[in-house]
């Protein structure tokens, strides 16, 4: 079965829909700046990729009552899902798979602060939506319940894994259509977590640059619609791109660090290419994981060289626009991979002053037109989880 992508939706630091995200990418305009909504003192010292919409604005736009206890995860997710299915007729056996690391943490931490500091139990019901699965359930309920829901939490590869699970559900005929993606809001918990690991850059992150000093955290939701190509064609659903290859591997090296030679990343890319029946030189653009940490970028570059040798295709990390959106990153970057294919354009890697890849290749430095048939998108995470996806231009 060939897997077609028939819809996409996104909300990120660089825009509240696909068109706004595309415009910002073309203008090379980052969304990483001083956070407004995040309730953490780190916003005074660090830059974040925050979605401009507040929770109350999101609720108003989505027609959700202001006093309903609903996580920012669910709100961002609902907004992106809405855009992804716009114009597509409803069909039976539709599923929703979300990748996330935070779930309802934004509400839990707000409750914990009140409870711990003032012994205030007023908002204890907020804990009912703490678990990641419940934030997906809330999204599904908004749309009158999808026939299937699932939530994946494999750290920063969560949303990328939703594509694999979704494809398998279509291929085994369990579903006819599946909306796959992920969401993670900025939270006090993760901001301080990454700060305690000392891998946050106080300035703009500099993926693949020798002087990179860490990542910027971002928040986003992105969802894409997967269908059997034959069904999509039969019903005249617009095919934006094909999901032609994927692989899920584990680095099996360390709980949080990546191996020096990028074993897991190497295997994920190699197996994804094999799954797509493609040769490395068929890849026209790589949307790298490229977090901007010393460890990730060195390890990913080592893995890229093992797969592509001296002929590394043009590559970039768009996390320099959005920040690292954790569980959502795989879906955010899937949207950008599709935009690259649709508009035949390469997106740059901002802030790379002195590439660690010198003499061999360097990340894309500015927006450029290019013939793009196949894009490789990488998502790697804590726990050694590595996933690579291949998106291809639909054949007419």
């Amino acid at each position, binding site marked *: 079965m060939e897997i077609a992508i028939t819809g996409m939706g996104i909300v990120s630091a660089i825009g509240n829909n696909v068109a706004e995200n595309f415009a910002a990418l073309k203008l090379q305009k980052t969304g990483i700046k001083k956070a407004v909504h995040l309730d*953490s*003192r*780190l916003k005074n010292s660090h830059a974040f990729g925050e979605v401009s919409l507040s929770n109350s604005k999101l609720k108003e736009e989505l027609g959700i009552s202001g006093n309903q206890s609903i996580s920012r995860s669910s709100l961002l997710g609902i907004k992106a899902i809405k855009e992804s299915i716009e114009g597509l007729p409803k069909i039976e056996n539709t599923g929703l798979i979300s990748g996330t*690391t935070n779930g309802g943490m934004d509400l*839990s*931490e707000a409750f*914990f*602060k009140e409870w*711990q*500091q003032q012994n205030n*139990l007023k908002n*204890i*019901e907020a*804990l*009912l939506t*703490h*678990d*990641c*699965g*419940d934030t*997906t*359930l809330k999204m*599904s309920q908004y749309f009158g*319940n999808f026939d299937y*829901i*699932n*939530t*994946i*939490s*494999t*750290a920063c590869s969560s949303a990328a*894994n939703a594509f694999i699970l979704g494809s*398998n*559900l279509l291929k*085994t005929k*369990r579903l006819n259509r599946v909306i796959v993606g992920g969401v993670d809001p900025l939270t*006090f*918990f993760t901001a*301080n*977590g990454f*700060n*305690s*690991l*000392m891998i946050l850059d106080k300035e703009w992150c500099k993926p693949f640059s020798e002087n990179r000093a860490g990542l910027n955290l971002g928040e986003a939701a992105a969802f894409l619609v997967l269908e059997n190509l034959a069904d999509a064609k039969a019903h005249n659903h617009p095919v934006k791109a094909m999901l032609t290859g994927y692989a*899920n*591997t*584990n*680095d*099996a*090296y*360390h*709980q*949080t660090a990546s191996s020096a030679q990028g074993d*897991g990343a190497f*295997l994920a890319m190699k197996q994804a290419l094999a799954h797509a029946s493609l040769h490395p030189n068929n890849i026209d653009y790589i949307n790298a994981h490229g977090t901007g940490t010393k460890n990730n970028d060195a390890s990913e570059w080592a893995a890229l060289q093992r797969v592509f040798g001296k002929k590394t295709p043009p590559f970039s990390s768009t996390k320099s626009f959005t920040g690292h959106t954790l569980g959502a990153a795989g879906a955010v970057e899937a949207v950008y991979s599709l935009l690259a294919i649709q508009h035949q354009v390469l997106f740059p890697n901002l802030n790379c002053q002195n590439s660690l890849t010198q003499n061999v290749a360097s990340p894309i430095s500015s927006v450029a037109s290019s013939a793009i048939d196949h894009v490789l998108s990488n998502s790697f*995470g*804590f*726990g*050694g*989880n590595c996933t690579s996806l291949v998106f291809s231009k639909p054949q007419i």
Partner: protein
Amino acid sequence: MPLFFEGSSSISHQSPSANKKLSLLKLSNELNPLIEPQYSQKLKPASLRRMNKPVKMGSYCAASLTEENEQTQGIIVGTGLGCINDTERFLSDTIEQKEGTLSPTAFMQSTHNSLAGQIALQQKNKAYNMTFVQGAISFEKALEDAQMQCELQPPSSLLVGAVDENTMQLEVLLDHLSSKLSVNKPFIGEGANFFKVGSKHQPSTIAELTYLDTSSKNESESVFLDRNQINTESFDWILNGGFDLNSNSNVLNFKEYCGEYYTATAFACHLALLAFQNLLANAPAAVGSVLILNKFGFYKSVITLENVKI
């Protein structure tokens, strides 16, 4: 391709009894602690020191099911709340220290995939690695993924399991929450239950997964059973986790023995495998088929298993 069970390993509130029939004891609201094994029998002391309870429990179960140097073709874990103790700890510390300088240990270990990642590390296993977190159907989602792997790229063996832990703080919060919502708080259980599964029927095979479905739509019990064409009469033994069934000798309310937690159905699955091997005193004789039903909030699930030796 069907999915076959080759073995199971469990940590629960019940004392395991190696090689003899297990008699389950009903849990009461008095202290029924988790019965933890000697972890050092299976796990290296150096890595053990860095593990939190769910990672320890799951890693121990995984190690019990695999030989030294054995690598399964995938590691699939389900968990409702993940490493909730480290999550609470890092959150509390951050609030208490007003976002000061914090140790990253609890944060690093709070991620939901830390168990699946740890098992991969333990086995030096670079293969497929997944973690599902869909509330009370998290274990079923892991099992369903394994079922699909068996259909699509038949693996010789996969490790599938589930874990959830209870904490002092969770008890306190659930007490407050139950009284606010005017509901009775059940006995909150915890545990890990892991299974070695594969797509080939071998001499060592214990059971076959014959059916699996979940719902998150808040359907009525009868609609759910009808839609799945489940006739409760046609099973030798029913492990019931909250459905409104006529109680008779063929029904065991399994949560009376493991407590309520998001991945309790994995414990029921373990009981079914024990019954098939004639290792469970609480099961009827010669159980050929088992129906596991579970209900929790909006979620419902059904799992049916068949004894391949009968």
